[in-house]
C-alpha cells in the first residue's frame, strides 16, 4: 500500500468502504493473473406512481444496492456481484471473478486517484429530496390536461417514475470515479372511443433531470402528443405491402439509426467479426451529407453520462463523418483490442451486469434539404412518425422498427394516416439509400430503453427528416 493520504469520496462512506478495502478486493480479483479488475458500487432508489380511473392509486418504491466485481484477462471476463458490501462477502465474489484466469497474480492494483467528471445533468434538487406530495399533483395535472383536449376520451392512465442513483467505480489502473444519476419519466396513455371502436396510444417524456422540467407547458405538450396520436388511429389505414420509399419524420425516427447502424457499430460485435460493419471502417457508407454521432454530453438528456460504467470519460463520438465510417463505440475491452482510447461507451444495466459497448444519444446532423422538398419528391410512399420498438440482426444487417402512426404520400402530397406498420430493411443498404436529409434535426425525448444481451440501458435518438429510397413496408396486398 502507498504512503500517500487516502483518497476519500463521500460515496466511499455511503458504501461503507475505504481505500484499503477497495485495494484488497481488487487484489483478490487479480489474484489468479487477471490484467485488469474493477469494482462497480451502485445504490439506486426509485419511486413510481400511477394514476388510473381518476385517482393516484398505486405506488412502488425500490432500493437496490450492491457491487459488481470484474476480472479481465485480454477479452475474457470473470464476473460476480454481491449485495452485501461487507469485506468478506466482497472477497468471496472477487475470488469467483478471479477464476477467469488460472495462474498466480501478475499485477497488483495501482493506488486509486479520484477523477473529476463533468456534470451533464445538473438538477435543482436530487430526487431523494423530493417528497411524494410534490410528485402527486403532476399526475393529476396530466390527467385533467389530457381530458380537456378531447371529449371522446374514455380512459387516461398516467405513469410516473424517477430514480436517484449513486455510482462509485474503482479500477485496478487507479481510477476512482463517482456519479449521481437522476432519471424521471412521465407517460400518458389515452383510450378513446368512437362509434363503439376503441383506440389507444401514448406519449412519454424522459430526462436525466429534476422535477423542475415537468412544468405546465411540458405536461400540456405530452398530453397533446398522446391525444393526437390516439385520435389519428380512428382514421388510419394499413399501407400497401411491399417495397416503398420511406420518409422518416424528424425526431423519434432516429430509431432507424439506432437499429440499422448504431448496434452494428458497437465494437464488441466488430472485434468478434460478427457485425456487418466489421470490414467497413474508413469507407464511404452513406452519401456525403450524412454525419452521425453518438453523444453522452447533451445536457439532461436521457442518454447522457458523466462517466461510463467502467470509469472511462464520456464524449461526443462521431461515428460517420460526411458519409465515411470513422469510429465504433468502444468499451475498455474493445478499445484495448483495437489499441485506441475507449469512447466511454461501456455501460451496464446494474451492478449485476457485465459492461459492454452501448449507445447513448444517437443522432444524425441536419442535411441540405427541407421537409417540403422531401415529401414533394415522393410519388408513392409513407411517412414514419411515431414508433413503439425496433430490433436488428447484427450480422445479417436486417433491422426493423414498428410505426404506430404515419402517413401515406401520394403524388408528392400527404394524403391519409396509417398505423401499425412494421418496417424491415438492411442496415448498410438503407444507409446507402438515404437520398435526402432536411435541416430540422430533433432529439426525441421519449422514454427509450435499448436492450442488448438481456440488459436495458436508457438511450435517446434523433434525426432530421430523411428520405430512404426503399424499405419493406408491412401492409396489405391489393
Amino acid at each position, binding site marked *: 500500500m502507498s504512503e500517500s493520504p487516502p483518497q476519500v469520496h463521500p460515496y466511499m462512506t455511503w458504501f461503507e468502504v475505504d481505500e484499503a478495502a477497495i485495494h484488497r478486493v481488487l487484489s483478490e480479483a487479480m489474484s489468479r493473473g487477471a490484467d485488469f479488475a474493477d469494482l462497480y458500487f451502485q445504490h439506486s432508489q426509485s419511486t413510481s406512481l400511477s394514476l388510473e380511473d381518476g385517482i393516484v392509486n*398505486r405506488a412502488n418504491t425500490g432500493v437496490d444496492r450492491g457491487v459488481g466485481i470484474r476480472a479481465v484477462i485480454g477479452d475474457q471476463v470473470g464476473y460476480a456481484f454481491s449485495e452485501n458490501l461487507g469485506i468478506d462477502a466482497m472477497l468471496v465474489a472477487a475470488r469467483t471473478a478471479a477464476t477467469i484466469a488460472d495462474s498466480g497474480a501478475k499485477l497488483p492494483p495501482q493506488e486509486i486517484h479520484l477523477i473529476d467528471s463533468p456534470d451533464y445533468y445538473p438538477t435543482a434538487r436530487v430526487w431523494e429530496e423530493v417528497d411524494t406530495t410534490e410528485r402527486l399533483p403532476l399526475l393529476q395535472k396530466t390527467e385533467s390536461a389530457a381530458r380537456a383536449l378531447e371529449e371522446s376520451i374514455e380512459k387516461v392512465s398516467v405513469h410516473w417514475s424517477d430514480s436517484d442513483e449513486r455510482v462509485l467505480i474503482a479500477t485496478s489502473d487507479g481510477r476512482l470515479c463517482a456519479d449521481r444519476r437522476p432519471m424521471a419519466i412521465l407517460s400518458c396513455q389515452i383510450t378513446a372511443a368512437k362509434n363503439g371502436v376503441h383506440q389507444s396510444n401514448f406519449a412519454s417524456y424522459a430526462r436525466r433531470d429534476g422535477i423542475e422540467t415537468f412544468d405546465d407547458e411540458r405536461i400540456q405538450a405530452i398530453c397533446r402528443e398522446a391525444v393526437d396520436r390516439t385520435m389519428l388511429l380512428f382514421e388510419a389505414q394499413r399501407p400497401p405491402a*411491399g417495397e416503398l420509399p420511406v420518409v422518416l419524420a424528424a425526431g423519434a425516427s432516429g430509431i432507424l439509426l439506432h437499429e440499422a447502424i448504431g448496434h452494428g457499430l458497437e465494437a464488441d460485435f466488430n472485434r468478434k467479426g460478427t457485425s456487418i460493419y466489421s470490414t467497413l471502417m474508413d469507407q464511404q457508407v452513406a452519401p456525403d451529407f450524412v454525419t452521425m454521432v453518438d453523444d453522452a454530453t447533451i445536457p439532461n438528456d436521457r442518454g447522457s453520462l458523466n462517466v461510463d460504467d467502467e470509469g472511462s470519460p464520456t464524449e461526443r463520438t462521431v461515428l460517420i463523418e460526411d458519409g465515411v465510417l470513422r469510429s465504433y463505440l468502444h468499451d475498455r475491452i474493445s478499445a484495448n483490442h483495437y489499441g485506441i482510447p475507449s469512447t466511454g461507451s461501456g455501460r451496464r444495466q446494474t451492478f449485476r451486469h457485465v459492461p459492454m459497448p452501448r449507445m447513448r444519444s444517437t443522432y444524425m446532423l441536419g442535411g441540405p434539404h427541407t421537409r417540403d422538398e422531401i415529401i414533394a419528391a415522393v410519388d408513392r410512399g409513407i411517412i414514419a412518425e411515431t414508433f413503439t420498438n425496433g430490433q436488428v440482426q447484427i450480422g445479417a444487417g436486417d433491422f426493423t422498427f414498428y410505426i404506430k402512426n404515419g402517413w401515406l404520400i401520394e403524388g408528392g402530397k400527404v394524403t391519409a394516416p396509417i398505423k401499425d406498420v412494421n418496417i424491415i430493411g438492411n442496415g448498410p443498404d438503407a444507409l446507402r439509400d438515404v437520398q435526402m436529409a432536411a435541416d430540422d434535426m430533433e432529439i426525441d425525448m421519449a422514454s427509450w430503453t435499448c436492450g442488448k444481451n438481456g440488459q436495458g440501458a436508457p438511450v435517446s435518438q434523433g434525426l432530421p427528416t430523411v428520405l430512404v429510397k426503399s424499405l419493406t413496408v408491412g401492409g396489405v396486398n391489393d
Partner: protein
Amino acid sequence: MTEDLKKRAAEGLQMALAAGADDAVAHVGDSRETEFTYRDGKLEEVQQSTSSGLSLQLYVDGRYSTHGTTDLRPEQVRRFVEEAVALTRHLEPDPHRVIPDPALYTGRPDADLDQVDPSVDEVQRDTCLDWLKAMDEITHGDDRVISATSSVSLNSHASARVSSNSFEGTNQNTYIGYGSQVAMDEGDGRRPEAYRGVGARYLADLLPTEEVAREALERGLQRLGSGKAPSARTAMVVDPEAGGNLLGRLGSALSAGAIQQNRSFLADKKDQQITSELLTIIDEPLLPRGLGSRRFDGEGISAKRMPICEKGVLRTYYVDTYYGRKLGWEPTTGGPSNIIVELGDKGLDELIADAGDGFYVDGWLGGNADPTTGDFSFGIRGHRIENGAKGAPITEMNITGNYLELLQNLVAVGNDPNPWSSFRTPTLVFENVEFSGQ
C-alpha cells in the same frame, strides 16, 4: 432453506404491520445463478452470484403500494418499510383495492410439481467446460462459421410469501439451459446468425449438448443464401418455437386489467368463437417439471387447470382480485402458467407438405401488436415453401393483419409441442396471411 425464508418473510410482514399497514404481503426470494460462456476456442466469460430480496405489498387506510429492496441491513430495512407505509398514506384511497379473499387460498393442490433437480446444483465447473469445448468444436465444423459462442447457465431459486390474512407458501425450483450461437459468412458482407438452445428444470430432460450444437450449426447453414420473396397473400406455417411468441401476445388482451381499461380486442368475446375450431388452449399450472408450474399464483390464489379457449370458443380471462372487483367478476388467476395447446396428428414436415406453397416462419424480427384492436405487423425469419417442401431462406419480410382474422384462418395444429418453454405451442398453420416482400 424454506423455513428460513418463511421466517424472513414473516419478519418483513411484522415490520409492515408494526409500521401501520392494515394488511400486507411479504415475499422473500433467494437465487443463485452461474453462467459460463465459451467462444472460438476459449472461455470468454464466467459469472456467478447469489441474490436476495424482500418485497412488500401494503394496504394502508384503503390505499395500496408495492415495494422492493435488496439492501437487507436490518436498520435499513426498518427505515425502508416505515417510509413505504408513510408514502402509501399520501396516495388516494381506492375502494377496489383489498387483500385477496382468503377463500381463494384454500384448496391449494398438493401435487408434486417436481421443480427441483438436485443434480443441477452439483454440476461442476469442469463439466460445464467439457460440454462447452465439445459444443465449440461442433459449431466450428464448417469453414463458413466466423464465430461461435456457446453457453451454459445454472440457476436455483427459493422464495416464501406470507400475508396478514393467513397466506403462507413457498416455492423452489432449479433451471439448467445451454445453447450455441453461430455467425456465418454469407460471402457478400452479410453475416447471418442462428441460435439453438434448450432449458428445463431437470438436467436429464435436456437434449445432449452435442445435438444442440449440431442443430445450431445446421440452422446457421440454413440461413445462407437468403433473399426477399415477392409480397403475397398465402399460407404461413409457424414452427413450435415461434408459436409461443405469436400466441403469447394474446396474454395482454386476455387480462382483466386491459378489459377494464377498454384496451382489449377480446373484451365482450367470452363464449364466442375467436379462432377456428382447431384451437384449444389450456392454462395448466400443475404440469410436472413445467417451466410455468405453480401451486399458487402471484396473489396466492390456489392454482387450477383453466381452459382459455375450447375448440375456438373463448372461455376465460386472466382475472386478478383488483380488476375482478372493478369489473364485478370472480378472480381466476392473474396471469399465464403453462400454456398447453391440444395437439393435432401431424408433424412439421407433413404440415409443410400439406401447405404446398407459402412461408415457413421459424422466428420473428421485431414488430408489434395492438391489444386494443388486435392489429399486428411482425418481421419474420424463415423459408419459402415451394411444392410442399422447405425452400430458400427469406429475409426482410413482414406479415401484417388482425389477430381475430388470423386466428379464424388457423387451418392445422401440429403434434409437436415446444418442450423448452412454458408456452408449449406446436406447429400452427394459417392461410390467407398478408406477406410483404419484394
